[in-house]
């Protein structure tokens, strides 16, 4: 045992950090400090230095709602909430995290999250030839259910030309961008390296010393030979590639010309091998077939990108996983890392990066660590007398639910998901009793059921989502959203009194105290205050039948669903 460990066991890590006596990540790991402990120690030190008082720890209710939303994309049911609140075990939070990560809903949620992250809701020019969303999300869900390491997933996505029978959907990244080289270059940089090199396309970006035009075209050289091939017989798009094509670039304002082979930022150039004339293609491009070269720069990209040595690759993953849970990257915005926009807590990011490399890009494991941290589990109630800046991560932020989270939470709060699954579950049991247990927890079976529910609520997504290619998270609430929530007939359909919704259950509860509890557990994922209980009592006091009770409750439920407490993740 090192002297530091001995010392730290007596006085804790914080004083050692404060004294600058410990080089954070390496030492911490060596001495058995988990990632979440490292994160907390560094932040505690930074807060002390900046004289920032963090918020208190979250209540169980806060935590339950937040972690369900972050790991499964939807609020829990009232029943699940009550069970968690009443659970007396001291490690219930860690258990909940593990339970959620192992659930099929985790895989489905991550499929949605990464779909939006990687496609940014784009559609290719020729929509019928697109990779079907359902198929693409199934591919992602399968990957996350198996906890496929990030480097493997990235390799598959960048390598894919759409022809692999086992995973044709992986080509979606290219297809939705029409395999347009400049768009692909920019987004490869942004989404896999956390760097937006767009401005460098024309000239060296005067703002950022380290984004060089050469970096942009180095990536461009990997993808410049690609084009979309639309197969009219199969009604599908494939990514074709030529065997020739060099990349030169000229600054718009100087006449300086540069030439580049494929090269990732910070990496070395990869020259093409010299091929015998006539041996350039496995299949030469023609009107009826895409080109398949013997040497593929695209495959080189797929090889070179997902490695620890590639500048920005690991950092980008760590940053984005952090942002998934904390609402904001350590580098913010997520695609704008450069010398003048460093991480707000460089050592936290470093520790996460190191962990990711050592744990082979284990996404579930990383999310688990972050979720276990004290930082993640802070309350959103401000520390008395102060409002710490967002980049301090000293209080849980209020962040708008994503369009998907909002949609599923509306369906959950009104009992529609439960009703749908109960029916399907009963059907499965009857028709397939031997496979029942295995199947009902299979993400594939559940995905189909969720997709059936999607149709009735797609307008929620289109109303709240950004334009294709734009960042959802940059959206502030706007009047269009409010008008939708107040007046849209489609929304009304989702929250009206109807059989098979939670109104059935609420209408049947005659005791106002029990009713208030069920309402608040289902909608706000917490127990009601005394005031809230008395409000509910007043609302239903004149109702004598379940129907009257339901109709008295409907506007109240509507109001709660429109409240900030519901609209935000907090």
């Amino acid at each position, binding site marked *: 045992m090192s002297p530091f460990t001995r010392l730290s066991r007596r006085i804790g890590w914080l004083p050692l950090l404060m004294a600058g006596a410990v080089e954070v990540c390496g030492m911490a790991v060596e001495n058995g400090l988990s990632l979440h402990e490292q994160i907390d120690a560094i932040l505690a030190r930074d807060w002390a230095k900046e004289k920032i008082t963090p918020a208190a720890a979250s209540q169980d209710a806060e935590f339950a709602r937040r972690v369900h939303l972050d790991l499964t994309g939807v609020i829990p049911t009232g029943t699940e909430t009550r069970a968690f609140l009443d659970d007396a075990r001291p490690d219930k939070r860690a258990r909940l995290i593990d339970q959620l990560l192992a659930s099929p809903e985790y895989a489905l949620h991550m499929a949605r999250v990464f779909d939006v992250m990687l496609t940014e809701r784009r559609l290719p020019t020729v929509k019928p030839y697109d990779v079907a969303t359902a198929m693409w999300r199934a591919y992602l869900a399968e990957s996350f259910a198996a906890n496929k390491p990030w480097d493997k997933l990235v390799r598959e996505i960048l390598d894919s030309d759409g022809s692999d029978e086992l995973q044709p959907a992986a080509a979606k990244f290219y297809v939705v961008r029409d395999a347009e080289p400049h768009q692909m270059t920019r987004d490869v940089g942004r989404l896999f390296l956390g760097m937006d090199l767009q401005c460098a396309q024309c000239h060296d970006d005067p703002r950022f010393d380290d984004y060089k035009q050469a970096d942009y075209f180095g990536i461009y050289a990997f993808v410049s030979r690609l084009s979309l091939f639309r197969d009219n017989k199969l009604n599908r798009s494939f990514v074709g590639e030529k065997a020739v094509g060099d990349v030169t670039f*000229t600054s*718009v304002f100087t*006449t300086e*010309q540069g030439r580049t082979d494929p090269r990732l930022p910070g990496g070395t150039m990869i020259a093409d091998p010299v091929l015998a004339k006539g041996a350039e293609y496995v299949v030469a491009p023609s009107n009826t077939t895409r080109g398949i070269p013997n040497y593929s720069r695209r495959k080189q990209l797929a090889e070179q990108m997902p490695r620890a040595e590639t500048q920005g690759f690991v950092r980008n993953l760590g940053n984005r996983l952090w942002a998934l849970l904390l609402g904001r990257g350590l580098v913010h915005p997520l695609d704008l890392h450069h010398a003048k926009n460093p991480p707000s807590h460089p050592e936290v990011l470093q520790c996460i990066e190191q962990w990711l490399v050592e744990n082979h890009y284990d996404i579930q494991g990383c999310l688990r660590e972050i979720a276990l941290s004290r930082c993640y589990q802070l309350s959103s109630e401000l520390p008395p007398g102060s409002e710490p800046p967002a980049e301090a991560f000293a209080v849980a932020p209020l962040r708008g639910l994503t369009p998907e989270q909002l949609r599923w939470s509306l369906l959950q709060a009104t009992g529609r998901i439960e009703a749908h699954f109960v029916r399907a579950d009963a059907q499965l049991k009857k028709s397939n009793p031997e496979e029942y247990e295995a199947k009902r927890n299979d993400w594939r079976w559940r995905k189909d059921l969720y997709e059936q529910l999607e149709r009735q609520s797609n307008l929620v997504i289109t109303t709240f989502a950004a334009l294709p290619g734009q960042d959802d998270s940059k959206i502030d609430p706007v009047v269009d959203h409010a008008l939708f929530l107040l007046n849209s007939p489609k929304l009304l359909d989702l929250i009206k009194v109807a059989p098979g919704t939670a109104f059935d259950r609420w209408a049947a509860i005659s005791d106002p105290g029990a009713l208030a509890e069920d309402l608040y557990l289902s909608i706000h994922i917490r127990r009601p205050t005394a005031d809230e209980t008395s409000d509910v009592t007043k609302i239903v006091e004149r109702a004598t039948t379940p129907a009257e009770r339901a109709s008295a409750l409907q506007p109240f439920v509507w109001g709660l669903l429109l409240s900030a407490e519901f609209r935000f993740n907090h």
Partner: protein
Amino acid sequence: MPAMPIDPAKARLVIEHKHDAPLMSCVFDPRGRFLFSGGRGPGVMCIEIATGEKTTLTGHDSWVGEMARAGSDLVLTGDYLGRVIAWDCSAEPPRERWNIDAHPSTIRALAVSADGETFATGDRDGIVRIWQTSDGRQLHELPKNVHPIYGLAFHPDGQRIVSADRQPQKPQIKVWDIATGRETLKIEVAELSGYRRVEDIEWGGIRGLTLSPDGSLIVACGRAGYDGPASALLFDSATGKLKRKLASSLKGFCYMARFHAQGFLMTVGGDVAKGEFRTWNVEQDASLADTSTSGPCTSLDIHPEGTRFAVTQAIGKSSYPETGLLAIYEWPA
């Protein structure tokens, strides 16, 4: 017509002349003594072929995009401000015979009738006017078109004229009876449209028009769709039916086509920092000969004696081409 038929596939470069601005138009005078060229500048370059001596002819105030020869000794040049100047080539160097403000806007098409007595101009507002070559007097104006006119060609019968425009999504070829101003045939050439909804701009359109010497074929030049390739479409002038598509491998535009008196067709085209000219037998899809050039070829003219031809290019390695090239080729006997 040369005594011996030439082999269209055997052109060779004779000489190249550099110019300090990108070039867009060229024409030999009726006697084949001078070669005129114009482009992004007001001066018209005039080269005496025998001696190579160059003169700059002044009179235009803007870019000179159109040129044609007329009669026995005139060359007509049209510019972006709507001015047309007739140059008397019996003088050495050629000098201005007349000078008119033909149009209120850019002249995008200029053609001369077979007998040389009349010429036609078309502009970017859709106006087509027909004039007397000898003195520049206006004779007719066709009913107004809406879209810019990018091509004009007289029918050899002297009574009809063909126009081509840049209507978005459906560029149009129209055949007109000159005397009555009546439109007798309309062909919509959607194949040459490069319309993109994203910018709501017609990027393509017909860029050049010519008729076969006997008037039976209309040739429309342009780009097949937004992505190309450069193409020339051949239409039956009586029925309007598409007879053949002559496609290059170049992604850019075919800008101009000209028939040799011997019956074969030549086209010029270009893309960013590269160009070509091709020779075709109109009964075949594949070209007889292709030559690549370092800059886009913007115009072409065949010498009246049919033994030589000239091609203009815009030249520049950087993003902004600054110079032009005028090249003379010959077909050896």
